[in-house]
């Protein structure tokens, strides 16, 4: 199809409103947040005196923020790994032409329909150290079995064990998503390929390693990108489930940003936190977008 000059003009006219909206309400406000983060705005009244990177320097000295960054790091890794692993596991089983495939697919996909807030409230009570799953153990006679779950304040090498509860809840919600993606990928692998491998005497494990995983690699990558930016920005799940936790064991930059900005009225510092969050997400998204655009060209 050949585009005439007139077509181009028309097209440009059509997309102009959405471009304007995006420019103003996304990039404009990002720029605005960045400007605020360099200012001395501390209190309800705005103050745009430039203090440059002072807010950022203060932030990195702040114990709470240091904990937040470590928590984000560990949460992101564990969340992605467990979602990809369990999602693949479920997809692989369902792909075996089992009975009631549609039923199981729906069951695993269902948590995805919930909002993070619902998931958070649900798991808060399930993992409550006194009335939750713990009391189930005690009913079964294991009187000494009692986990602290998200109130556990122990840590190892900077990893707070309380995060496991949040990882559990988040994985429960999102493994259905990775499962659906992998299922689509698995269906796309030619049956002949697997059959001929079987004829050659390849075991199940070899088939997974040598055929299935290489052919769904692009799906793993996009799943990681989607999950990665969810975990870097996590707020609602943690807010509903645990809050900051004792000694900030389940605190994340999103929570810190909300409290700093809207409870403490430290607007400049809050803007600095959100800019740092943006940069973290950009590290994940930008290389991905770059590689996709490159392929398209």
């Amino acid at each position, binding site marked *: 199809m050949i585009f005439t000059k007139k077509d181009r003009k028309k097209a440009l006219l059509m997309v102009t409103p959405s471009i304007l909206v995006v420019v103003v309400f996304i990039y404009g406000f990002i720029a605005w947040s960045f400007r605020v983060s360099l200012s001395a705005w501390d*209190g*309800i*009244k705005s103050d745009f005196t430039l203090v440059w990177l002072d807010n950022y320097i203060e932030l990195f000295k702040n*114990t709470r923020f240091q904990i937040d960054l470590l928590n984000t790091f560990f949460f992101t890794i564990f969340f992605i790994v467990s979602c990809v692993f369990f999602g693949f596991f479920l997809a692989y089983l369902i792909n075996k032409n089992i009975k009631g495939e549609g039923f199981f697919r729906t069951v695993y996909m269902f948590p995805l329909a919930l909002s993070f807030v619902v998931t958070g409230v649900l798991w808060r009570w399930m993992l409550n150290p006194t009335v939750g799953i713990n009391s189930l153990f005690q009913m079964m006679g294991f009187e000494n079995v009692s986990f602290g779950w998200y*109130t556990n304040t122990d840590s190892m090498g900077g990893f707070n064990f309380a995060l496991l509860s949040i990882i559990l809840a988040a994985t429960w919600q999102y493994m259905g998503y990775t499962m659906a993606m992998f299922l689509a990928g698995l269906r796309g692998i030619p049956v002949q390929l697997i059959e001929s491998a079987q004829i050659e005497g390849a075991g199940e494990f070899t088939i997974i390693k040598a055929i299935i995983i290489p052919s769904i690699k692009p799906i793993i990558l996009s799943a990681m990108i989607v999950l990665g930016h969810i975990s870097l920005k996590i707020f609602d799940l943690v807010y509903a489930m645990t809050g*900051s936790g*004792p000694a*900030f064991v389940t605190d994340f930059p999103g929570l810190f940003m909300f409290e700093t900005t809207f*409870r403490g009225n430290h607007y400049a510092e809050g803007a600095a936190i959100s800019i740092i969050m943006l940069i973290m997400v950009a590290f994940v998204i930008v290389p991905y977008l770059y590689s996709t655009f490159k392929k398209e060209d």
Partner: protein
Amino acid sequence: MKKLVVLPILFALMISFQISANGAQESEAKNEMEIFSWWTAGGEAEGLNAIIDIYQAQNPDVDLINATVAGGAGTNAKAVLATRMQGGDPPDSFQVHAGHELIDTWVVSDFMEPISYILKDNGWMDKFPKDVILEAPRTMEEFFNVAEVFASNGVTPLSLGDTGIWASTHLLENVILASTGPEKYNGLWDGSTSWDSPEVREALNNFAKMMKYVNADHSAISNMDAAQYVAEGKAAMNVMGDWAAGYFMSKGYDQKVVWDWVPSPGTEGNFIMLSDSFGLPKDIKNVENAEKWLTVLASKEGQDAFNPVKGSIPARIDGDRSLYNEYQNEAMDDFNTNVIVPSLAHGAAASEAWLTRINDIVTILVTKLDVDKAVEDLTSAAEKYAQK
């Protein structure tokens, strides 16, 4: 147990912050009045409705809009409010904790009108209490003896529910007051008492020691859950404001039978005060209606409609005592005779900026019990925020 007063004691405070009144905007054709609060549940909502009824009876033609945002201690409502105020869309009157939360956040930044004229015009200037100084507090020794007895009998001595960390800060302010006494306690907020003083250190050590006696799941439960532990006999004691009394009342637990109250250890003769209040923002549409609203709030009738239901006590000293239960009557006596000091956890003693820092420090202290680190952090926070 600590008590609180509700409503417009701040009127008197605001006289010292006289701001030149802008020419009030002419209200639009609609005869509306919007009030903004976080009273969405239980006795609080009932109290608010009781006072709205009076307002509507006096002003039947006003269309009253009751805007509420749920969330304990107003944590969510405040974010919404800040956005509206900065965006030039103030509600006609809004709930705010009297003291530094109101002064530092809203008055200093020039968002509020002075309203003492409402008291003057009604001849109510002498209907609000003045601070009366009484005796010095006792030590915490008895508390720890009793706690030890409870602990050895398998009962949690002290219940705490700090999913919202303010509950721990609330306990801490009582423990600090027990060690410092009211004068030095007040000095913490204007910089004349050092946070590195022996008294504060003693208090923080007491607080750390107390943490051995609290329920293990404190970080998983709310302050109301913690009160419930006491009602169920799972725990023996709880340090909380008088909304806990309101909670017990709404659950039908009899006073002096299921539960009883004393001042928090070492704070007898002192009254840690917090007050919910409403003010008059600048540039609102319905000035007259808002003034009528404030008048209802400050009236005897309004105070006596709201407070008995909410479980709090009136800010006026001439409340009708027969409307209040035994606990409230005792709290009213204390309010009239005790040394009144402001609450830290509820925004009366320090600015919100300072309080959020202190809450962060308490979050760490509750778990790590590192008193030296807490003293160091509290001192540097005070250096930044105390008004000398």
